[in-house]
Structures are given as structure tokens and as C-alpha cells.
């Protein structure tokens, strides 16, 4: 099945740094809408991305054949030609490593028949069909086996594989004039783990039915608890993107936008990005420049800490690379991206978090969230908390705020931990869409948040 031997050699050209990344991917997608299979697709692809660094500029191209690599490097060397002072020294930052982390071959979902995958979805579909309130639904299944190898001209040679699979059921329920649009998702490394979870779906649908009679909340400022999924997405969108160094472009004084050491939250608030967690959708043991994944604290004990870097941004800022240079496929260059971004657990149980709230809100699931620094979050399932107890479901149109104000208002962090395994909703940045990332962590309690 392997398309590339990985035997290609990578040498410097005229003294310039070169790196080459080969990728093979074997994805499947199945879409079922209101009882009809809309498509069942297997679209294997492969490609090789090539870069040379010359005169402080990257020259890049891609090919599909291993034997074309040498010629492509020569072409790139000829394409350059505008002189520029060389200041980037990647060799100083990169310790060449040779390592192979192939561990998902046995779980490779592309070896499982399409008919078995459809059968799996049909089982969940039969549960959906039992609910007369559901007027329309859509089941989207995706899996992928990915094989990557990264080599460079200073001796790095790493390879790894990754397997992900999962599905999302989007549906709309109706009772008279009231509707509720919900989403149930499952994701894992192994298809086996997607089976026999119908009870979780039933539980979710029963809960969703309660929202058909939910009343809109009165706008105002509330003490609010965000679930792992909601807090994780908020952190990803509003803080994580801000931490990506290629977004922070000021060349004069980088500390303006990310003043390291500044207190932005209470003690005990730790926010991390780490690609090295195997059972996660953001798993990336090496980034696409061959740099080993490492745990990067964006916020450590309430203080602003490290940004996320590629080799280039680290070199420009005189900081360490963080293993966050990632590309969506072999046609694209690595740019600074998150992997798994999460809030580390605290010490309080969910029950205790609610205990001193007279009137507040628990936001359990989110429809979407956007905005960097200033954010708008549109909840899906939210509950009123009254006198320390979780009460009736409520409708919330949106919550909005500034991430740094929200961080300062974090009162408590729960003692549980849940990383959301995202198979469908990837991260979008510039023209590179749907990159696999993970987010989540613990629940957070926020002193005041504007709810509408």
C-alpha cells in the first residue's frame, strides 16, 4: 500500500537549507441525509512538498513523484535570484533527529470495507429514526490514515502515522413552532471504539428534546460555567490564534502583543498546546519541519508565557521553536498552527463550582465561536444554575467579550479533563482549511460574562 519508499536523499543546494516532506493519505467520507446515502468516497492521495531557504526566503514547490525531487530542488534554486541578506540560521535551532513513530498500521481505517462503515452508521441512524421530533438529519462520517516523512539537509529523518475516524449527526427537532438544531459527534483512533455507543446518542437526544421548550434568557451579566468543549473552543479561537507567531507580525517589538510574564489570569490557570498526545485529533509527534512535539504553555500559572512557533518565526524572535509548523497537505507549506490546545485541570468538582452560584449559567455545547481577542460565542445547549443547582435549559443567542477580560475573570477550574476528538470540524487559517486539531481540558467558572 505504501506509495513512497522514503529512500530519497536530501542535501543542501549551493549551501542552502532544504527540506522535503512526503505525505500519503487514505481518507473515506460517507454522507447520509434523511435516509439516503448521498456519497461514499475513498480518495487516496499522495504528494511531496519541497522547500529551499535562500537569501532569507523560502522557495517551495510540490510533486507527486519521489524521483522528481532532485530536479525540483534545482528548479527552485534557479527561480530565486534576488539577493537579500541572510539572517535566518535554522541549523542553530534544529537538532537533527532520526525517528520512526509508526503505530497505527493495525488501526488503519482504510483497510475496513466501506460496507462495514455504512453498516455502523445505519445502526445509529435506526436510533435517529425512532424520534418523531426529528424532521431532518445528516450523518457525516470521515476517517483517514496518514503517513508522513520529513527529511532535511542537516540530517533530520522522521516519519509517523496517524489514524482518525468519527462521525457527526446534525439534526433538527421540531415541536409545534419550536425547533432545536443539535449535533452529536464521536471520534477516535479506532473504528472499533465508535461501535455500540447508541446509548450515548439516546441520552443526547433525550436531552435535546428538553430544549424544544427552552425559554430565552434575560440579557445581562451572569456568572457562567463553560464546559470543556466550550472553554476549549473559546481558548482555541480567541487566544490560541493570537499566540500563533505568524499572526503577530510586528517586527519592531513583539512584546507589545504578547508580553511574556504579564499576569492575565489568576494563579492556577494553565493553558497548553501539545501535539504529542496519541489519542487525540491534534496528534502530531513531529511538526512538518521535523521538530519534536513539546508541551508549550501559552499561559502558566496565570502569566502569559510562550507563543507558538515555526522554525522561521522562532529564529526571527530569538525564541525556541515549539513544534507548531503544520500544513494541511503536501501542496501546502507549514505555517504556525495549534495542535491540541487545552486548559489544565484544577481542583474543584463541577458540583462545588456551582454551589455558590445564586443565578448563573452553564454552557454545555457550542454551535460556533469566532473572533480573535474579541469573541462571539453562540451556544447550543445551556442551562440556568439557580441556588447552586443545575436547572432548566435556556436559549441564549450569544455571549460576547474580550478574551483577556474573560481570562482575568476565571474563578475556578474543574478537576476533570476531556479533550474533544474532532474529526470533522478542523481549524481554518489563511488558505489552509480543516486541519485536525484537538481542544478542551477542564471546565471553567467565570465571574461575569455578557449573555444575550
Amino acid at each position, binding site marked *: 500500500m505504501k506509495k513512497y519508499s522514503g529512500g530519497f536523499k536530501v542535501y543542501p543546494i549551493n549551501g542552502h537549507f532544504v527540506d522535503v516532506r512526503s505525505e500519503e493519505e487514505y481518507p473515506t467520507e460517507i454522507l447520509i441525509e434523511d435516509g439516503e*446515502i448521498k456519497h461514499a*468516497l*475513498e480518495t487516496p492521495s499522495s504528494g511531496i512538498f519541497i522547500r529551499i531557504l535562500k537569501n532569507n*526566503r523560502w522557495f517551495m*514547490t510540490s510533486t507527486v513523484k519521489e524521483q522528481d525531487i532532485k530536479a525540483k530542488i534545482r528548479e527552485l534554486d534557479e527561480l530565486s535570484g534576488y539577493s537579500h541578506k541572510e539572517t535566518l540560521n535554522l541549523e542553530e535551532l534544529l537538532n537533527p533527529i532520526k525517528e520512526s513513530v509508526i503505530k497505527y498500521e493495525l488501526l488503519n481505517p482504510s483497510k475496513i470495507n466501506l460496507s462495514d462503515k455504512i453498516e455502523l452508521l445505519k445502526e445509529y441512524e435506526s436510533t435517529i429514526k425512532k424520534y418523531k421530533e426529528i424532521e431532518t438529519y445528516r450523518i457525516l462520517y470521515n476517517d483517514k490514515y496518514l503517513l508522513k516523512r520529513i527529511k532535511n539537509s542537516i540530517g533530520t529523518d522522521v516519519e509517523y502515522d496517524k489514524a482518525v475516524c468519527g462521525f457527526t449527526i446534525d439534526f433538527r427537532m421540531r415541536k409545534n413552532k419550536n425547533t432545536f438544531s443539535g449535533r452529536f459527534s464521536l471520534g477516535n483512533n479506532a473504528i472499533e471504539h465508535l461501535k455500540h455507543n447508541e446509548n450515548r446518542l439516546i441520552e443526547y437526544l433525550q436531552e435535546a428534546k428538553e430544549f424544544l421548550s427552552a425559554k430565552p434568557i434575560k440579557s445581562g451579566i451572569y456568572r457562567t460555567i463553560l464546559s470543556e468543549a466550550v472553554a476549549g473552543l473559546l481558548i482555541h479561537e480567541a487566544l490560541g490564534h493570537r499566540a500563533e507567531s505568524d499572526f503577530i507580525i*510586528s517586527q519592531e517589538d513583539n512584546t507589545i502583543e504578547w508580553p511574556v510574564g504579564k499576569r492575565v489570569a489568576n494563579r492556577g490557570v494553565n493553558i497548553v498546546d501539545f501535539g504529542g498526545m496519541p489519542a487525540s485529533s491534534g496528534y502530531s509527534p513531529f511538526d512538518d519541519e521535523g521538530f519534536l512535539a513539546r508541551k508549550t504553555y501559552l499561559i502558566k500559572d496565570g502569566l502569559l508565557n510562550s507563543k507558538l512557533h515555526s522554525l522561521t518565526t522562532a529564529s526571527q524572535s530569538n525564541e525556541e521553536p515549539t513544534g507548531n509548523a503544520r500544513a494541511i*497537505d503536501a501542496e501546502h507549506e507549514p505555517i504556525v498552527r495549534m495542535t491540541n490546545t487545552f486548559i489544565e485541570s484544577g481542583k474543584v468538582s463541577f458540583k462545588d463550582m456551582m454551589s455558590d452560584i445564586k443565578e448563573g449559567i452553564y454552557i454545555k455545547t457550542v454551535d460556533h465561536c469566532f473572533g480573535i481577542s474579541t469573541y462571539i460565542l453562540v451556544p447550543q445547549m445551556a442551562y440556568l444554575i439557580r441556588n447552586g443547582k443545575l436547572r432548566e435549559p435556556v436559549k441564549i443567542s450569544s455571549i460576547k467579550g474580550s478574551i483577556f477580560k474573560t481570562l482575568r475573570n476565571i474563578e475556578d477550574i474543574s478537576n476533570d479533563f476531556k479533550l474533544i476528538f474532532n474529526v470533522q470540524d478542523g481549524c481554518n487559517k489563511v488558505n489552509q482549511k480543516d486541519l485536525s486539531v484537538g481542544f478542551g481540558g477542564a471546565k471553567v467558572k467565570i465571574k461575569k460574562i455578557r449573555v444575550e
Partner: protein
Amino acid sequence: MIEKYQRLINELVIVIKNSDIYSIKKNEIIRRTVRLFGKGKIAISASKGNVGFATIIKEVEKNIKYGQCYNYNMPDDSVVHHYFNIKKQVSSDKEFIKFVSILFEKIRSKFPDYIFLNSIKRSVIEKNISIRDKSDLLIKYHIINFTILFKHKDSKNIFDGILPYIKTDLFDADIYIDKIGEIIKALNNPSSLNKFDFPIALMNINNTFIGKKIRDYIVGENYHKGNSILSGMQCKTIFNENINMFDVSYYPEKAVFNIFDDELFIRENYYLPIIENGVLSNLLYDRRTANIYKQDPTGNGIKPEYNKFPQTSANALLFRVNDQDEIPKKVIVPFIFYEGNIDSNGMFSAPCPLAFLMEDGKFTSVLPQLYITGNIFDLFGKNFIGMGNKYFADSHINPFMYSRANIVKLH
């Protein structure tokens, strides 16, 4: 019956960071898709990279049993071959890189306090669809996307300004720099306004979140399923009687090149009227939905991605220019809209992190972050003032549209 689809893109991408060339990428991107029609079902298979059609056909034959049902007509057996070559004179890679280098040298010296960034892309795109090896459509065109973002070197924002440019040919560098200068002058002059009781001027409504929602509302299937706020309003007056809106499939001057859709449908009229004098006159259909709702296809069967079935999608929405309208002298221009919500009654709300005050057609000052709310039927109805004949960017398909909404400070 087999339909073969191929999209070939040769692109040169120049990434600008810190007002200079950061990287240069040369890519050949190939996407191939096969749709197999047989026994009442259509299956699809596709590939990224240079995978031959024979391999993809084998794949799709294997999966035909999982295809979607179809009972509508594809083009008949008559032989149709159309080749549309709209490729302009393409500069060499080195010439293009040199143009960009020189332009940014000028920009750096003219605006030393500002940092410029984004990707500049020059693409030659070739799309080919054939069916039964008899009907065969091919279009080849050339696009330059020179949209640039910029920010003050001390700004805490991701960016402060943007100058969009998507066209088939390069521009005059001095005019481009002047336009940047106008925005920067306004950025350097923050407004002290606290009340925002001015009309709004929406730039190229097609690209705003409101335009994107309208694109969904006029999709026939959404309309008939009750998923559009316009459902049940066909042939009724929905907007101001001065509003005429078209779905435009081919407008090369504005880089719209859908002469044929992804189901081999060539429109007789590239300008399909959707709203005529405020009345919702037509909706959009691909071949499948046209069959379901007993309508004619409108040439809007467009693949959302190379490996997906075509589905109904608008091309570009063009609002007819009416330069007879009196244009307000002082207006608020929402420059960047975040994605906002529109509810089932047409109420919308959206944060606007960047807005300018425009006086006599010139940006004069930057406004604080705003929050804009209103009702879409009022925006295009009783509050509608008119379409101007002034375009913010030469590449925009629509000029400024003037109306009224509720505007407050975001914080």
C-alpha cells in the same frame, strides 16, 4: 455513462510578511473527479494529485451501489465541444516576482510605519468536463489575487486595513499605492464620534455575511423546504422597488468565469434576474433539484469541493447600478464584518471590528469597533437609500449600497 471532471491550476504564490517577500511557491494542482451514472444511481470518486482517470473509474465502479439515486436528465448524446480560452498574456515567473519586489520596495518607503502582509497569487486555471466523451467543455483563464492586509507597526490588531484585488490583469502600481494611502490616512485619524446616526455604505454586498445569507435564501431547495426566510415569497415584493439583483455566471472583468456549471449547463443569459424591481422572480436550481421541483436548471450546479457532487450555489450576486440615486455625503462604511446571525424574521446582528467614516466618497477617519443590527427586509426595504456608482475596489462586482441600520459601539 461516465462524466470526467478535471481542474488544473498552475499557480505562483508569493507570501508577503513584514512588507517583503517571505516565500515563493510554484505549484501545479490537479484534481480529477469521475461521476458514474448507472441503474438509477450516481457514484463519485476523485483524486488529488496526478492520478489517471482509469484508476478513478475503477474505484467508482466498485462503489456504485453506494451512490445516490437520480432520475433527472444529463445532456443528451448530441456532440457539444466548447473551448473558452480567456487566458490573458501571462508574465513570466521572474517578471511577476520582479513586479512584486519593486512594488513592495515603494510601499516600504512610502509607508514606513505600516506592515504589509498576505499571499499574492497568480493562477492559470483550466477546467474541463466531458461526458460520454461526446460533450466536452473546457475553460482556461487567468486570475491575479493581489489582496493585501496591513497594520500599523504598533497596532495590537491582527490587521488594520485591507485592499482587495482579484482580477485577470495587473494594476497600475501608483493607483494601488494611492488607494492604500487613502485608507492609511483615515486610520491615522481616529474619529471621536460617540453616536453613529449615519447611513451605512456596504461595500460589495455579495461578499458580506448578508450577501452570503441571501445566496442561501435563493437556492430553490432551501426555498421549497422552508429553510429560507424568503420561502413562500416568490413573485411577491420583498425589497425596495429600486432593487434589481442578478446571479451572474460570467463577468470576466470582475473575475467571474462560470460560463458552464459543473453539470455541463451553459446559460443562455449570463445574467439571471433574481429580484426585479423588488420582486423575487427566480430561484436557483441544479439538475437534481430542478427535477424535484419541476423547474428548469439555471446553471447553478456547482461542486463545493472537487470530490463532492454538484449542488445548487449562487455564482456572483450583482446589484444593478443606479447612478440616478442621490448619495448621502457622510456615511459609515463597515469595512470588516464578522460572521453575523440572521434569524427567521430577518433580524441580523454582527460585530464590525473595523469601520470608516466616508465623506464625499473619501475615507476620512477610522471609527471604533461597532455592533450593527437591523432587519434584512428593512435594510433592503424601507431603509434602502440606493446603489451608487462608486466601487471601493476596482475588482468588486458591486458598488457601495446605501441604507440604514442601528449602529452602536461594540464595547
